[in-house]
């Protein structure tokens, strides 16, 4: 193998790939990134990394003088490239089965793994491709993924659920059974079947594709999903299960509705959290007659906090408490100035929505009254 490429391309791609690798005692090669240069793909080299749960393939432009493949420890090559500022162009060469990276006046040798053990990424037979702008797709994921369960006991909810049909827009849902976030984006796909993507893959998908432009192609079958943007191909297993019938949880009618300024509420909740106890409990008391919400916290160690926030209120007065974290979490992902809080009395979920649009809703269960 003998190639020349821009250092920047290699550095950026290796740092994306490194996160996918895995320290595996049985199979140390999973900690490596595979660099392949093939003449059937002229002008491009391919970087591959996988931890057997997810995998990534990145194609970067390069001049190939000699074909070949090498697997090197991702941590080592990433560490080297991020500190190597000398040249713009670098040469990669295979010498005695080790990788030599050279630039004017510099030469580095990185010991490699035998490539025979490097796993091949799964492929998908039926080509069912759905495309949409990658920005929209990532915003859908980001609007809900923090709500997924982290425990792993129920894999189907340690995930993000995605679905669409020719009649219903693409919907993203995540829940950990204490709260639930649902985001709709206006793309309708015929022949789409429900997808359950593991939380850990979602975190990587967001990291990898967050700042990308253009369209994302989504290809999937029962067992895995492939996401492609430009030169990056990401693969993840899917959860083989049934996402809970979440629609039955969403109430259709409410006894109290309060409209508040999002920033104000967020600031108050953050301050209140200083004085909340071990359970992160904040008390909300809604006073219709005064058009305001009273917010209280108290803790034996730190003290007490008591404030009000103006609000347009329809319906009954109510007193209810929440884990403030669960409310703050969703406020970050609402992009309007005002939000609507819908209540149904004690021990019933609070539903938070945008003021004017119905594309996002967030349900959160209160603390036991």
């Amino acid at each position, binding site marked *: 193998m003998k190639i020349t490429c821009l250092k920047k391309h290699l550095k950026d791609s290796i740092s994306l790939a490194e996160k996918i690798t895995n320290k595996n005692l*049985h199979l*140390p090669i999973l900690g490596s990134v595979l660099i392949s240069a093939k003449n059937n793909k002229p002008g491009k080299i391919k970087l591959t990394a996988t931890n057997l749960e997810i995998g990534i393939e990145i194609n970067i432009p390069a001049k190939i003088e000699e074909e070949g493949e090498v697997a090197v420890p991702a941590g080592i090559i990433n560490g080297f490239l991020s500190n190597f500022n000398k040249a713009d162009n670098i040469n990669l060469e295979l010498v005695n089965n080790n990788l030599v990276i050279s630039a004017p006046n510099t030469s580095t040798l990185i010991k490699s793994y035998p490539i025979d053990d490097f796993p091949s990424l799964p492929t998908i037979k039926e080509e069912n491709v759905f495309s949409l702008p990658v920005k929209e797709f990532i915003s859908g994921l980001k609007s809900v993924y923090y709500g997924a369960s982290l425990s792993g006991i129920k*894999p189907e909810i340690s995930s993000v659920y995605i679905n669409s049909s020719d009649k219903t827009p693409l919907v993203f849902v995540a829940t950990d059974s*204490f709260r639930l976030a649902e985001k709709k984006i206006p793309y309708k796909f015929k022949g789409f079947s429900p997808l359950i993507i593991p939380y850990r893959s979602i975190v990587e998908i967001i990291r990898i594709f967050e700042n990308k432009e253009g369209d994302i192609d989504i290809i999937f079958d029962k067992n895995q999903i492939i996401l492609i943007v430009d030169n990056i191909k990401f693969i993840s297993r899917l*959860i083989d299960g049934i996402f809970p019938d979440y629609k039955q949880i969403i109430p259709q009618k409410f006894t109290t509705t309060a409209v508040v300024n999002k920033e104000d509420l967020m600031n108050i909740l953050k301050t209140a959290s200083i004085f909340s*106890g071990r359970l992160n409990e904040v008390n909300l008391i809604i006073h219709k007659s005064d058009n305001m919400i009273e917010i209280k916290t108290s803790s034996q160690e730190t003290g007490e906090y008591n404030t009000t926030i103006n609000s347009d209120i329809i319906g009954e007065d109510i007193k209810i408490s929440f*884990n403030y974290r669960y409310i703050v979490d969703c406020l970050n992902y609402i992009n309007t100035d005002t939000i609507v809080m819908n209540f149904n009395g004690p021990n019933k979920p609070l539903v938070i929505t945008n003021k004017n649009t119905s594309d996002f809703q967030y349900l959160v269960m209160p603390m036991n009254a």
Partner: protein
Amino acid sequence: MEKEKLWEGVLAEIELNISPANFTTWFQNTNIANKEDGTIFINVPNTFAKEWLFNKYHKLITKALRCLDPNVRSVEYIILPQNSNNLQKNQQSSHKESENQLEFNELYINSEDNLNPRYTFDSFIVGSFNELAYTAAETISKNLGSQYNPLFIYGGTGLGKTHLLQAIGNKLKETNNSAKIRYITSEKFTSDLIESIRSNNIYNFKEKYRQCNLLIIDDIQFFSGKQKTQEEFFHIFNSLYESNRQIVFSCDKPPKHIEGLEERLRSRFEGGMMVDVSKPDFESRLAILKSKLESKNFTLPNETIEYIASVIKDSIRELEGALNIIIGEIKVKNREISIQEIKDILKKNIKPYKTVTINAIIKTIADFYNIEEKFIFGKTRKKEYVTPRQIAMYLLREDFNSSFPYIGKKFGGRDHTTVIYSYEKILNEINKNERLNQEITQIREILYKD
């Protein structure tokens, strides 16, 4: 050769040929799923393993298989995900972590049978007020369809009917894996029926219920006045009953008091075992509070518990609600709270207990029939007084569970057999005499309206 033995042989052969690292990585969690016409289907844990075995070790595997079984012609790989093991058990432990944070219970309800695993016989508190219902429920969970069929449990709201009903289903699920169980509220049944009619799918709807070994219908009183539902249900009922499938109902009143219920259904409801759950007595209320506290890992002074038990008499649900409010208040205030404070809290949060005294009943009936109260207590045998008097006795017995001798004593020292006679007279009369039935309903409305 058996599948397990065959695969063991193959693994032994492969282990000799590849590195231990590769062997553990790729052959973990593999086994032979099936053997069919010379094709061996191998279960693998994920797509990576499938690709890898196929691309890298396919020849080796095929060779090893053929050595042991010459009939093997081809090998296929099937993905069998590993992530659905023992969820049920782990789930319960995770629930305990968050006693104060409420959850969407719906997520834990099994969509096949609609049962919530938290309702079990073990967590049901048995007292004199529900002992019979409990015993009947437990019995049928062991002898499906043979002993009490249908079982009809009735009583006011918040007394644990749903808990009992679901416990039957959960118990059966535990002991018999293959039994088809379905729990549904009568409202859901109706809306499913309407949906199936609209989508021309009524056959599937019927089949779904006819296959059940145990069908549980909660709050059957909402069938009232819904003729089409009653008709469809009647056929499902008959079909289940004839094939000895168990049917269980709950209702807020006995069948004879469900208005707008077809006679043929009423008689079927009454044809099995009817048991009631009544309001818990003071001791039971104490026991319930204590057990709830225990499950929440919280303690309250005895005096406080006794006070709560003494003021909240109507429903277990209310009892639990009150307890939660008090615990919440203690947590917010971070100190113990006095009985006086508890009184204030409960006054604010619990709807006032409507007390209906004997005098109120008598007064209402007297007003209703436009007669003087003293004639109701009196001994006059005039017909215009006798019927109101009998209705008063009937209501005291039926709605307030007063004993016959007590009623007799109140009504000028009459013998309890006289009271029984009056009670039964009205009871029979209601079914025959529509006017009397309506009058009693109206009296009840006046009495119980807030």
